[in-house]
């Protein structure tokens, strides 16, 4: 990778993350690598490394982190939070980073499409006539969507 100039990075990014809900533990990390050792994702996808993600956030590598694909790989298994001696709560932290990324419109296209579906239908798929017919055969009431309610909830 090309050399990165620290002068061009954003030192305030770590404070932004730390003040986002879930990111409070960022500055407590002392890079012991327990999270990385416990992470099942890291076993198969080496570029997903919790410790390195924390370091990148601390160094202010905002663009590199938010535009990356690997922050979306977390399976939210909470193994990292279990082992962390500093109570960084990395799973919450990566949620915070993902939230920041989606605010900056950096989320993957699939996820954004899912968000659209959720907004539109209140589910990750549309309930069509086909489903309601099946339901009536089973003696269940039909599902009626209320898009305005979903929008107000979200």
């Amino acid at each position, binding site marked *: *990778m*090309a*050399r*990165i*100039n*620290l*002068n061009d990075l954003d*030192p*305030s990014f*770590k*404070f932004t993350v730390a003040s986002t809900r879930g990111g409070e533990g960022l*500055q*407590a990390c*002392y*890079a012991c690598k327990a999270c990385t050792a416990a992470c099942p994702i890291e076993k198969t996808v080496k570029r997903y490394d919790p*410790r*390195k993600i924390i*370091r*990148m956030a*601390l*160094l202010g590598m905002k663009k590199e982190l938010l535009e990356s694909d690997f922050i979306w790989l977390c399976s939210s298994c909470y193994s990292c939070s279990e082992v962390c001696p500093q109570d960084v709560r990395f799973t919450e932290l990566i949620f915070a980073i993902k939230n920041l990324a989606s605010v900056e419109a950096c989320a993957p296209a699939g996820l954004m499409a899912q968000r659209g579906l959720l907004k539109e239908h209140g589910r990750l798929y549309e309930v069509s006539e086909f489903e309601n017919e099946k339901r009536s055969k089973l003696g269940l009431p039909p599902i009626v969507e209320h898009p305005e309610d979903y929008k107000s909830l979200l």
Partner: protein
Amino acid sequence: MGLKLNSYIKKSITITKPKLTEDSQEQRVLVVGGDWIGEEIASRLQKIGLDVTLSAAIATSDADLNQSAPLLTGPIDGQIGQFQATFIESDNHTSKPFGFVIAAQPAKAKERFNLYGLKQSQRVITVSKLLALINEGQPLPERVGEWYHIAFIDDLIGDSEPTVLSQFVDCIERLKSIDKLQAYVFTRHLKVAGPHLEDRYRKLRENGVIFFKFDNNLPTFETQSDSYRILFEEPLLKQDFELTPDLLVIDEELRPPEDLKETFGQLVPFEISEPYLQTESPRFNSVLTSKAGVFAVGPTRGIYDRQSIIQDIETVEFQVKKILDHSKDSRSLAPVVDKSKCAVCLTCVRLCPHGAISFSDSAIISVPSCQNCGICIAECPMGAIAYSQINQLVGANTSNIVKEFNFEDCAGKIVLFLCSRSAAQAFKSIEFIYKDDVVVFEVNCAGSLQTKTILDALNSQASAVLVGGCFKGNCASVYGNILCDNRIQSINQAITGLESNPVGESGKSLIPAGAATLQRQEAKAKVLRFVQTAGNTPEVLMRAISSISQELSDL
């Protein structure tokens, strides 16, 4: 009991209570060193009613020192109660006596620009310079970008010095008011063992200071117009980075003051080299030196942080009070020189670890400085020094000299010579096991055992001889244990020589004086060993005794 503690060596002799003579100047104290350390000591000792002189050391142009303060012009010499120092005071040369001398010079801060290949400039400064700028309220160099980047270099060579880290922490904490400040610390092996230092370091990290800890891939510096570009591989991300800091702050190496040798070289008998005014013995981990009445504070013994220095100052005050409280001599014995035998060969002067021996027409042992280790007695080639009753020291002659060791009841037993500071204490906890098999002689220091005494023990009916001394580096008399070990090794070599070759063919140098009197068949039955131990390690002594018993049963 079966134990036979030799009656003539008294146990009441302690090094921490040096004794003053009648004509001593115990109320007068000389404090060498000009900055806050010296002033703090002076004010504390003045409060307890002592007459304190604060002076600068030799060969320093100490600008911080008060103009009217006297300046030392030569090395300090003498003994406790009667140290002599020469000064220039208000353009007059004077010489004054002092009861105590306290070495309290400030540390020497050595800049390290050359070490990293850097050049000092407006944007490249030492940490003391930055502290001075902050203290004086001077402005820092202008920022180039939006953020003000400060890079601190904290020892890229070895382990960092906690005192220097605490200086960095001071700087960063006091620069908090600057808007958009980002501090980076480039370090190698960061050490946080200082008062509250780990806590302060953690707070810095939590407040956004970035620490880069390098292992082998050290950063390099590239010249910019008025600063440097730092090129490095981030150790965690394994990614190349660069940083052009607005201010580059370099650590300094703290060293003991450079003039220790000139000022105190005459007093402290060992070679003053690296690092300070003390030897490696843990006994000297406080402010004591091997010379009674001379104390080392702070930087003169390699201690640089303020809190530990204040502890040192309190310890000095305590030690001085303690000596004044116990100024009456409680010893009944001290070594004395038989003038008719002394050849003024200066062996004792060279070897005395406490700097207590001077000479004119014969060697002269200073009673207050002497700490009764007995090394001079054991090493005198003329046998001219022996213990004598202390009240008969003046004009001593051989009739006052204390009798030799008595080995009459040693038949079939193991003779133990035990150092009172280590092995004798260790033996107390195991004496119930061995009390029927051993005869114990407690000695002040293993170094006081003469070759002749050991040979006498071997020549008695004893089955073996074991000498217990201190671990290497632990000896209160600096090297008494090593001297004794050397004697025992050469005796053992001589005995082996006697066994394998007739006397005369085994090489003269191997046979110490008196060894020839050892009968060959007698020597064969003996085992002679030296063991290093400490007061709390009786198991070492037990192992040595059982291995000797094993060897004896094998013979």
